[in-house]
């Protein structure tokens, strides 16, 4: 085409094309026009709820069994409070919350003993549970923690699933009436797909809070920068106990970490206390656990706080715990 001889027809065509382009550009501009600009960060409003897993119809039950063999003391402790069948029904999906916080071997008692995992899983499956899931969000590398503590191996060979704390399993959660657990990532998916929760933890010294037992063990449901809660440790433990109302708790006081907790690291930090505690009241279980650490409830503010919230009683004697011995 020769520009010297631009005819009318060509001029019209060209103008039409130019007009269409201008129109398209303007429409796109208008379409994406944003008058207000970005807004400040809004609170996450996803409303997820964690159900109450406790079985109030069973009442408050507690047993304290002396003995050195975890499998035996656990069986007797559960038998004394009505047997696992009272808690786990046929077809139940059970979440076993262990303490797998550190990548250290079972002999150091910094984590839930694999025998506990084996025994509880076997009992649940025997009672007819459809599945048992073992989980925790450890402090050290999750894969190393589950492997070195022996929990992964024990769980798999007993027939339980092990759920690693992958990012997609967490959901932002707000605990009603809580100060701290607000819009906080919580290991929610495992809690969502089950209907019974069993908490099990060893008895350990903890320099900041005084002790790490059942209630402190729910820390492993938190994600994100949970360390920040150490600034108000007693309140966060209380709120964790508010967040998780378990079906059953088993506090393993076979070996107690008396000092250097919660990591330990040496056999000299440990004491054979030969006690297994099972029950429905997590506050009472922790209150008894304090005695194994030679501590009083007065020294552990989180127990008092939990009691004040009516999550259980610090006066475990009032529950008339069944006392037994395997030896």
């Amino acid at each position, binding site marked *: 085409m020769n520009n010297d001889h631009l005819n009318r027809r060509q001029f019209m065509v060209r103008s039409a094309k130019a007009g269409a382009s201008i129109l398209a550009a303007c429409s796109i501009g208008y379409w994406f026009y944003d008058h207000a600009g970005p807004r400040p960060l809004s609170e996450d409003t996803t409303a997820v709820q964690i159900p109450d897993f406790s079985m109030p119809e069973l009442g408050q039950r507690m047993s304290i069994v002396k003995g050195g063999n975890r499998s035996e003391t656990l069986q007797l402790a559960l038998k004394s409070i009505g047997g696992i069948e009272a808690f786990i029904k046929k077809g139940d999906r059970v979440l076993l919350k262990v303490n797998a916080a550190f990548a250290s071997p079972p002999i150091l008692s910094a984590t839930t003993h694999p025998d506990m995992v084996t025994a509880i899983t076997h009992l649940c499956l025997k009672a007819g549970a459809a599945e048992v899931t073992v989980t925790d969000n450890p402090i050290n590398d999750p894969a190393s923690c589950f492997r070195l503590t022996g929990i992964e191996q024990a769980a798999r060979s007993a027939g339980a699933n092990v759920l690693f704390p992958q990012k997609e399993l967490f959901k932002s959660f707000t605990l009603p009436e809580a100060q701290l657990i607000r819009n906080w990532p919580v290991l929610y998916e495992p809690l969502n797909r089950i209907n019974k929760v069993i908490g099990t933890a060893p008895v350990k010294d903890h*320099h*900041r809070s005084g002790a790490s037992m059942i209630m402190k063990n729910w820390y492993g449901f938190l994600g994100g920068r949970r360390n920040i809660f150490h600034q108000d440790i007693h*309140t966060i433990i209380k709120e964790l106990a508010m967040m998780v109302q378990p079906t059953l708790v088993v506090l393993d006081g076979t070996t107690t970490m008396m000092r250097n907790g919660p990591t330990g690291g040496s056999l000299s930090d440990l004491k054979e206390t030969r006690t297994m505690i099972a029950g429905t009241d997590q506050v009472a279980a922790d209150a008894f656990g304090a005695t194994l650490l030679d501590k009083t409830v*007065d020294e552990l503010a989180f127990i008092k706080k939990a009691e004040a919230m009516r999550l259980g009683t610090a006066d475990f004697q009032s529950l008339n715990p069944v006392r037994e011995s395997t030896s």
Partner: protein
Amino acid sequence: MLKIGVRILGDRNGCLQLKNIVMNIITTRRICQIFFFILFLWFCLVATLGERWWQLRGWPVNWIIQLDPLVGLGILLTTRTLYAGLLWGLATLVLTIILGRFFCGWLCPFGSIHQFVGYLAKRKKSIKTKLKLNRYHSAQSVKYWILVFLLTIAVAELAVDAIRLPRSTPMGFAAMMALGLAAVIVLVIRQIKFNVKKTIAAILTLSVCWVLISFLFYADWRPVASLQIGLLDPIPLVYRSINLIVLPLIDQTALMASSSPRLYAGPWLIASIFIMSVILNLIRPRFYCRFVCPLGALFAVLGRFALWRIGKTREECTDCHLCEKNCEGACQPTAQIRIAECVLCLNCIDDCHHGLMGYHTAPSAGGEIVSPDLSRREFLVSAASGVAVIPVLRIGGVPGPNWNARMVRPPGSLPEEQFLSRCIKCGQCMRICPTNVIHPAGLAAGLEGLWTPVLNFRIGTSGCQHNCIACGNLCPTAAIRPISLEERQGINRYAGQGPIKIGAAFIDRGRCLPWAMDRPCIVCQENCPVSPKAIFTRTLFNTIRVHRPLIVKNADATRIEFESDALEQGRYSTGDYFCVIAGSPDPGPRRIIANTAGSLTVDRGLPFEQPPESKNSVAIQIRLQQPYVDPKLCIGCGVCEHECPVRGKRAIRVTAENESRARQHALTLQG
């Protein structure tokens, strides 16, 4: 005419037969390349801690590195030893001497990438363009400069020792010189003609000069062995690129190549070099192999005596140049073939329509250029620059008095100079580390330390775990020693020497919450994995700021009411706050369990024996446990730094102070 026709026909038949066989050889080469490439990828993938079949188990994940004779040679030069599996390099070396550069054309995973990308780039180009792309280029000698440069960096210390020979072993030196003179005498006796005077003069001059310059160096000459071949050696390069760039990219998808998604500090340079070397294939096929690769250069030198070579069977041919159409090495098989450049792709055998190309013991009928294209001047310049590198770099005092304390090396790492004489920057330790705490260093350890492993406690799933010794047991060159768990933790046999320390933690009191901001925390103390804990606390009660004075209105044993509403509702009920009465004979702090704006309640377990009187002044105190580090117990694992809730610049940080591998970095007296 008929006769000629028949001959051509006969030739053609012959050709076809030969071609069928050769097709199989090309296919075999491709299968071999694919096999080794997949094997290489598999080894990268399974370098993950665990016992499943797709995890480390017993896979020989270092085998391809060990097959690389440049790694073995480099370490032989710097350390005068050949660590364990590096002996495999000898197998490659022997085969290269027999067969030529088979490694380049048949095995090298990096070479296979280049060949494939090069094929994609030129596949639709005309034969004329292909011939142009595959013509020999004089810059192909650059790779020899690089090889000489990198090897002479490694050889510097050996050279100094050789120079010191007359002083370190005078008898040996004298014997050597005597042997030279004896050789002259023998030659004279046997009446072989040569310039006797000149030879004797040369031997004597050499001896005198050698003795003189031997005085230049002291016996305790600072070691200058440093291994830098890993910068460009294709095997460490491709391992590093896959381990630290490609697999972490895959981790971000649903495929998940690692146990948890990986991050590696400073990926840009590693990625740029890898991507650049792949893209350069668009300019010329196998650009890296032809112009850069020091390993190829080493094979070229070794292959000069190869028993079998590529070449023409007859000198006269049609000069169609088709044999150069797909020539990977650009070794000009048409004319005088450059044996040093031939990577044994065997494409020329396939492409020659007349069946003239072969792989045989006889030299090419078209003539051969056996030696690499490297002049004496080029060699000397490269060698001199190589020798100078480390002495020049170490003028900066790294390693030495100007060492960078942020360079925390993995447990079992050798002392820095020895470490640098072994590390090939392959990234295997970074890949295997289960907590993703080992990272490639940038320039923090000096230019020499580029891409060597350094611990970064901000990244990863934990600090350096107390129960892990994976890195040292995987390191192909023992730059990180294969230590046992007992040695790492200092137990049983190693109880006497204590645990291996890689550094020490320091508390930044200006950033630490209990030290600077009246907030309880001690997450570091909680997570310290050693027993007894290296981090301990001292408790103190700090009076906190209240905006109005707290004057008692009335009080009983557990409850105080104030004259004004000075307090924030519920703020002091956390269990960490206490109250004390100024000037009271009952000074002990009482734990506050509840407070309103104008009152507070203390724990019933410990009530006031004498409740404060009205008009008394009350102070609220916070109980703080302030962390301290015991340098005797701290192993520098960095779990504390990893967990510290001050997320920006951590309030507790590990530096390489007190590391076991360097006594000159000790922080405290022994014991």
